[in-house]
């Protein structure tokens, strides 16, 4: 299983975050919100300077490139938990 975090942050900002928080999984930068738009997750104007950000969302993609699980939260304080991820990952086998 591979975990990938995607946001509008620049590679430098993400690198800083990984260093500070000790994250070892991949962080991808989408400053132009290309992927964020492709997944229809753009939350326009909600950044700190009125810039566009992604709404929080989680997807599990299997090795055929097919979506197996989607979590679109209704409240951006509430995110998927690790237990949910693990339960979904086990079902992939």
């Amino acid at each position, binding site marked *: *299983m*591979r*975990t*990938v*975090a*995607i*946001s*509008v*942050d620049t*590679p*430098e*900002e*993400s690198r800083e*975050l*990984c260093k500070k928080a000790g994250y*070892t999984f*991949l*962080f991808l*930068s*989408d400053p132009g919100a*290309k*992927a964020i738009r*492709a*997944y*229809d*997750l*753009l939350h*326009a104007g*909600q*950044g*700190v300077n009125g810039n566009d*950000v*992604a*709404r*929080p*969302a*989680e*997807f*599990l*993609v*299997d*090795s055929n*490139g*097919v*979506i*197996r699980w*989607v979590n*679109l*939260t*209704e*409240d*951006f*304080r*509430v*995110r*998927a*938990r690790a237990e949910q*991820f693990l339960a979904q*990952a086990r079902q*992939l086998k």
Partner: protein
Amino acid sequence: MERRKRNSYPWIGFVLCLIGVTSYFFLFYRWPITRDVPWANFLILAAGAGFLISGLRRAFARSQEFKGKIAGPILGAISLVAIGFFCFLIFYATKQLPKSAGAPKVGDKAPEFTLTDTNNKEVSLASLFAMPLPGTQKQPKGVFLVFYRGYW
């Protein structure tokens, strides 16, 4: 002239209300169990409101005995605004999200993308499956894509 006693309850209530609101942002947001439903903050706010109410009752119903007729209502009003602000955030503001009706659904093909990683290297969705997992020769069975708001 008789001396009235100091009425500390409105002050205790006020401080509890301030802690009840601010502690979410510097403490309780960190853990899903206190973030998703901010019960810890609501407990502190309820305690604060309790102190304020009994402090105000002392100030007004037993005003020969206790002070606080001026400070009590002022502190109460500020606390009420703080509680209102917190409830607005929790029950309304953070729920304002786009519909995302076009987001891929279970069974859909995941849209391909190419983005840059923290080493400024291009990474596509396909390459996420092709790359072996760190420290192994194995390719991943699946990829979790976690979109987040970032340092906004």
